[in-house]
């Protein structure tokens, strides 16, 4: 059973456009929702994260929107640039107790066309 579902699997966006990646989770105990960016041959790197007490968080061109009632969250990349081309993973975890690791979505391969 996959606890974090991510879509789309791949996405092509023109330079300057908005990239949108969506995730849905099942476990209501999740209380930390990060997004990771991975370039080929590199490990995932934390991009931005949100906790369920806020509905939106913005850092530069990257925004997370969070809908607790729908158990969904999304990443918006404004003014997408070719350097943003990478694989993006949403993730979730339970902050306190139990297994401490992240549960990842299956990833979105994003290509920004010049």
């Amino acid at each position: 059973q996959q606890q974090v579902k991510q879509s789309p699997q791949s996405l092509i966006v023109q330079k300057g456009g908005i990239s949108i990646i969506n995730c849905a989770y099942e476990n209501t105990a999740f209380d930390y929702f990060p997004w990771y960016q991975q370039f080929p041959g590199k490990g995932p790197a934390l991009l931005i994260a949100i906790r369920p007490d806020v509905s939106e968080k913005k850092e530069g061109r990257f925004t997370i929107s969070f809908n607790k009632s729908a158990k969904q969250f999304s990443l918006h990349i404004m003014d997408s640039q070719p350097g943003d081309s990478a694989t993006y993973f949403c993730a979730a975890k339970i902050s306190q107790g139990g297994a401490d690791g992240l549960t990842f979505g299956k990833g979105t391969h994003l290509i920004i066309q010049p």
Partner: protein
Amino acid sequence: DTAVSQTPKYLVTQMGNDKSIKCEQNLGHDTMYWYKQDSKKFLKIMFSYNNKELIINETVPNRFSPKSPDKAHLNLHINSLELGDSAVYFCASSQGQGRYGYTFGSGTRLTVV
């Protein structure tokens, strides 16, 4: 000044062999992890370990075992390697149950032939 470093970066070995992957973090984090990324890029946690507790994902075969000589190191030992073990293995670390995020190494690509 690599925060989380793994060695080797590439590892090619034959079925049935035993191999180890080393991981070191210089961030002073209290918890370390091993993740497996399969050919479809799906990331799945294998182990979570701090100096008090080892948590094992129940789907991980017991041929895989983490060894932590100290707080800054978490090595991964794999016995009797199988073709299906081919993947990229990532070490990661965090502080305070990850409330400040996780830092990943650059991965070890294991190929079993």
